[in-house]
């Protein structure tokens, strides 16, 4: 199985005034292509920091981050931006849609940045994704006219529209009620199954973790000392997740 993310000994310190806040203290991790992986941990454990490193929107203080076979330390700003554009899709906790653009334009945006598809191809791609996330009817709505769950669906469509190898979602359901959150996770898992796209999502919610087929646990900027490089066993996941197995497990 191809390795899509490989992190060795990554640390990240934030500077707060004169104090150095260690957010990650030596994390090593490998993610296989096609995984549906959850990064779990309490608030402040470093989940967002880790996802930012994987997403190439931030750089580690030490250690290496490889994404899709490229060592990010060796890439310049332009190359990193290109790597994000062609390889990674982002789903943010607070959706981060562009307010002035309608749903269609928001989803089309990454394709416009890529400049590879014709407008007809783009329209087909966007419409088929909006169909898949159940927003066919909403393509000319502004984000402000949508509910939270609908906005996150738009964000998912936007993250997937370029057919990236890797989709990163930082607490994608934290701003949604639990039923809507479950729907979003179902949708993500379905897309993971259908296309084999790698998903990495973070959460501090045990029920959300239970959707993953692998979970890594973060605490205090470190992976928990479990077998398999920080991965929880199925039993641990089952124990953590209080969701009924029939409804949530594949």
């Amino acid at each position: 199985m191809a390795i899509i993310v490989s992190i060795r000994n990554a640390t990240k310190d934030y500077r707060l005034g004169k104090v150095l806040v260690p957010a990650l203290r030596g994390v090593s991790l490998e993610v296989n292509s096609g995984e549906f992986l959850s990064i779990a941990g309490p608030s402040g454990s470093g989940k967002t920091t880790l996802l930012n490193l994987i997403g190439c929107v931030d750089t580690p203080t030490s250690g290496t981050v490889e994404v899709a076979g490229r060592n990010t330390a060796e890439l310049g700003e332009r190359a990193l931006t290109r790597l994000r554009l062609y390889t990674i899709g982002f789903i943010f906790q607070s959706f981060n849609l562009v307010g002035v653009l309608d749903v269609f334009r928001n989803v089309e945006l990454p394709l416009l940045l890529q400049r590879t598809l014709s407008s007809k191809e783009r329209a087909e791609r966007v419409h088929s994704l909006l169909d898949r996330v159940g927003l066919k009817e909403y393509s000319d709505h502004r984000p402000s006219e949508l509910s939270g769950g609908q906005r996150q669906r738009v964000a998912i469509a936007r993250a997937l529209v370029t057919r990236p190898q890797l989709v990163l979602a930082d607490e994608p359901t934290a701003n949604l009620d639990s039923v809507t959150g479950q729907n979003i996770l179902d949708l993500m898992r379905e897309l993971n199954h259908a296309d084999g796209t790698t998903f990495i999502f973070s959460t501090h919610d045990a029920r959300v973790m239970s959707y993953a087929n692998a979970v890594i646990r973060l605490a205090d900027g470190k992976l928990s000392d479990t077998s398999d490089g920080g991965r929880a066993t199925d039993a641990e996941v089952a124990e953590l997740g209080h969701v009924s197995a029939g409804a949530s497990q594949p």
Partner: protein
Amino acid sequence: MSSFFLDLRIALLSLFEHKRRTFLLGAAVATVTALLVLLNGLSAGIRQTLIETATTISTGHLNVGGFFKVTAGRGSPIVTDYQKVVEVVKREVPELDFSVPRGRGWGKIVSDSGSTQAGIGGIEIEHERDFKRIVQLSSGNFEDLAQPNTILLFESQIKKLQVKIGDAVTISAQTPRGVANTVDCRVVAIAKDIGLLSQWNVFVSSDSLRSLYQLRPDVTGAIHLHLHPKALKDLPRLAARLRTSLEHAGYRLMEPDPKPFFMKFQSVAREDWTGQKLDVTTWEDELSFMMWTLKALDGLTFILMLILMGIVVTGIMNTMWIAIRERTKEIGTLRAMGMQRGSVVRMFFLESLLLGIFGGVTGVTLGVSLAALLNAAHIHVPLTVQIFLMSDTLHLAVLPTAMLSALLLVAVVTGAASLFPSLRAARLKPVDAMSHFG
């Protein structure tokens, strides 16, 4: 290409989204543009008035004059057998609109109750065209100037001499041979003052001047050439060409010297030649002693424009700064999704540029309309200003090039004002931009 339209779309939509800010900024840009247009129109208008008045009254666009020397030491500012010179000019200068001969002199004008020194223009009123429009009479009429021994005085001279229409004045001067001579003239026209030029100019019928200086009828002081507007851009080149043409026609010419004729007496007297030599000068040469007014005007306009532009740049930069701060999270998101830094900057530049163009077009329209209104209102200017303006009403000339350059300047400056804040925002790490609040 599609990426450009994305920028354009986001730019347009953002402008539309923030209607209030767009409106206020647009209004500010429009106001400044309108002021620029008006300022430029005022400057160009004054320049036009000044040039029109000065060229009509004392030089023409090109001036064919010269000196005739009886002996090496004594020169008179005259052109002998001037009709032949006019023939050559008509043949060689297709840009010529019309030409008028003018006598030139300097003397003392004496009445029963006063006297004044003045330059004396010998005028053939029936050949003049714009003179009757530029010089406005308060009493008397132009036609009487065609009669022998008549004079036109300006109001300020009337005050000094205490005369009225029909009264006689005596003009005294030295003839080319160095003999004192006088001639009596009847006041037939009194004209409103036109600034500096009316301070030291009177006009007499051309034969009065000839009899004063005891000149033959085929002698004049200078030939004023009035050219078609298009030819006015490159007068020095035209002057040089005319010099060559006159030389080919057998005339001797004085060395080119960009000074008014009355400053050339001494150098001419020092030179060792006799007979006639011609001189070709431009109005700028002849009026170089008063070009400082135009230079001062240009300088003032430039400084005011700088101040105006400074205000726009500061205002727009401030507002763009706030606008871009508000959208830092959006910038972070776009950067995370793969938008290059350059595109971010371009997006905001475009937004700002559009604002500049909208505001600018509105402002130009506003400025042009205001200028038209002001012109129609025939606003009278105070006396002190009249002296420099050489006109009693305000005239604004809004040229298409001025409109275009105001628009261009404002649009570019407005666009450029976005560069600094947007560059800063684009340079942030995407994470830092996204976690930005406010």
